[in-house]
Each structure stands twice: as C-alpha cells, then as structure tokens.
C-alpha cells in the first residue's frame, strides 16, 4: 500500500505534503501530554505491523492496522502514522520521502474516518467490540485502497484498472486486518479496558 518514489506527479506530491502538514500539525496541537506514550506505542505498532508478513496462498500479505490505530487514537493517528511512515521510508525505503505526504494521507485519512464512524458505537456499546474491530480493519484497508487508486489516477493511471487491481489484491489484507483488529479489541476489553474507553 506504500507508493514508491517516482510514481506520483509533482502536483500530487505537493498537495499531499500540504494536506499532511495541516493534518499532522493539528494532530500534534491537540495531542495531550497524557496521550503521548499511548500514541508512541501505537506508532511503533504501526511501524512494525507493516513488516510482519503472513503467508497466504502462493504469496504473503503484510498487516496495516491503520483502522485499529485510528479507532484507538482518534486525531492523534495522523502524527502516529506520519512518524512511523517516515522511519519506514528512511530505514527500509518503504514508500519514499517524496511520497511520504501522500502515503500518510492514504493511511491516516481512512483511519480517522473509521474513528468518526465507529468510535460512538464503541463508547455507547451499540455493537460488540469484535464486530467493530472487524469492520474497522476491513473498512480502513478498503478506503486506503480507494484513496491509493485516486492518487494514482491523479498521477496518470487509469482509475478502473488501478482500483480493480488494488481491490482484488487487498481482499486478503482487509480480512486479515479485520480479524486482527477484532482480536486486539477483544483482548483490550478483557485485559486493559481503559485502552478502549480512554
């Protein structure tokens, strides 16, 4: 899901950085002292999750977990994901520094959308936690795939070709992320409920 160097056009890169600067800046501004450790832990989780490859059929998929991070961090997910992606780009050339802005938006916007949709349901106990976890994991990867298609189209790709390929390639990731998010939420509910209802 990371866009490599040299794929995006200059206007897309500039717009991506501009939007990321605004969202990350606002996220840092709103970040409370007591939430910094929690945000750091989830940022590190996001950093490591992308490196965990799970064998699936002939190939393998890697976890993203942006939905889960968005649900548990709220607006702070922008800075958590930005910092994690920056170190992935510097240390592993995952994505790239020029596409860092777009990659951050691609991961963090769906995470924040999931927070807006599912956070009330989680707080008011409208739906069971594992179900919310699965929906969050599934939807966030789906939305990230959709955004990725849009960014590629803006850089000259054909939308339906890109969207179809990305959607098909990420179906296993959507399911995997959904299952992992469901398990994590269930685990937090039993072991450390303040992580969910903070």
């Amino acid at each position, binding site marked *: 899901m990371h866009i490599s160097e040299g794929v995006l056009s200059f206007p897309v890169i500039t717009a991506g950085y501009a939007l990321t600067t605004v969202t990350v800046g606002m996220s840092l501004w709103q*970040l409370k*002292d007591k939430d910094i450790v929690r945000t750091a832990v989830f940022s590190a989780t996001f950093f490591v999750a992308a490196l965990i490859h799970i064998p699936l059929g002939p190939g393998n998929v890697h976890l993203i977990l942006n939905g889960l991070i968005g649900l548990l961090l709220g607006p702070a997910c922008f800075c958590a994901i930005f910092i994690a992606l920056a170190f992935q780009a510097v*240390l*592993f050339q995952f994505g790239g520094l020029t596409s860092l802005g777009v990659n951050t938006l691609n991961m963090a916007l769906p995470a924040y959308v999931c927070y807006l949709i599912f956070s009330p349901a989680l707080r008011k106990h409208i739906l069971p936690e594992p179900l919310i976890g699965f929906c969050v994991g599934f939807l966030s990867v789906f939305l990230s795939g959709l955004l990725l298609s849009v960014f590629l189209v803006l850089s000259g790709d054909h939308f339906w070709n890109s969207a179809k390929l*990305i959607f098909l390639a990420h179906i296993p990731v959507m399911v995997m992320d959904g299952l992992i998010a469901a398990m994590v939420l269930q685990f937090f509910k039993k072991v450390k409920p303040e992580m969910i209802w903070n």
Partner: protein
Amino acid sequence: MELIQHVRLIFHYLPRRNSLLRDVFLCFAKMTLILSLWLLPETAAWAHKVNLFCYMDNDTLRGEGYFSGGRPAQKAEIIIYNLENDTVIGTTTTDEKGVFAMKINTDVPLRTVLNAGQGHRGEFVLERKKAVQPREQEAVIERDFSASECASLLEEFQILEQRVRQLEKQNSEPQPVFIISGVGWIIAVFSLIYIVKKQHAS
C-alpha cells in the same frame, strides 16, 4: 538538568496500573534508544519495496524483480533507459518467475525501471565498462576450451549467479536489529514532542 526533569515527567505519565507494562516499556525504551543511536548511521540502502536485480549476459540484459519475502513481481512492466541521455532503449515485461531478458545492442550504461503497478516501482542502474581494445603490442592469448571445461565453467557460473540472487534477497529483507532501531527512534521523537509541548506550556 531541565532535560532530566522532562524525562522524569515522561516516566511519570507512563501507565501505572499495570506495573509489568510500565517495566517492559521502560526497559524497551532504554535498549532501543541506545541501539538506534548506535545503528542509524550504518543504515545501508537495502530496499524494502519492489527489488530489481539486473546483469549483462553477453549482449543480453537479464533481470529479476521481486517483492519483500522473495515473491516474484509477475507480469511487471520493464523499461530500459540509456543512463546518459535518459532515452528509452526498450520495454518488456517479466514472466511468472519475475525474470526478464532483453537483447541490448549498445554498450551504454543502463537504468532499468520495473513498474509493478499499485504504486510499486523499482530501479537498477547498470554501469557498463566499454569493451577495451587490446593494444597492438599486447599479445592476445587465445585457446580453445574443451566441452567438459565449458560445462564445468557454466556450472560454476550458475552456482555463483544463484548465490548472488540469494544474497540480494537476503539483503532486501529488514533485519530485526534495524526494526528495533526504528522503534527506538519513534520513542525518541515522541519524547522530543513531549519536551517541546512542556516548554510551550510553561
């Protein structure tokens, strides 16, 4: 002294209810900070993206594209550029094994780009030494190789080629020590954010 006070404050805000989590976090933070400061200058350019490896086999450019974990980049678009003037020399696609071969008629240095779609892109630059003409005074030693010698040389070459590919794949995988170093840097950045926010507040 002020820095030490800020670090103490960070530790003050760590989870208290679960003391095990607190201890693990503190221990991990210390270890990773030390490791990361030690390791970051050594970060090599091993790539975790679509990897491309190319070499010349007489007048044929051969190459292999693969994702992390060694999964081949199948049916990916390959574009070969002249490195000197950035003109396209030729295009092709990889097969099911992620490999390709293309005849190259010039001896210019090459830049090969692999486009695997979905924003995945890999590059490989092949600097080529131009063929050196033997000077007149130099005696050129020519000798015929027997069929068995040729077969033995070919076998050795194939073993070496396989070994180079294995090493390339190994180097493209992130190693645990660098992953820990990355986590350390993330903790360091958030510590810095905390200090800056505290300074602004005061």
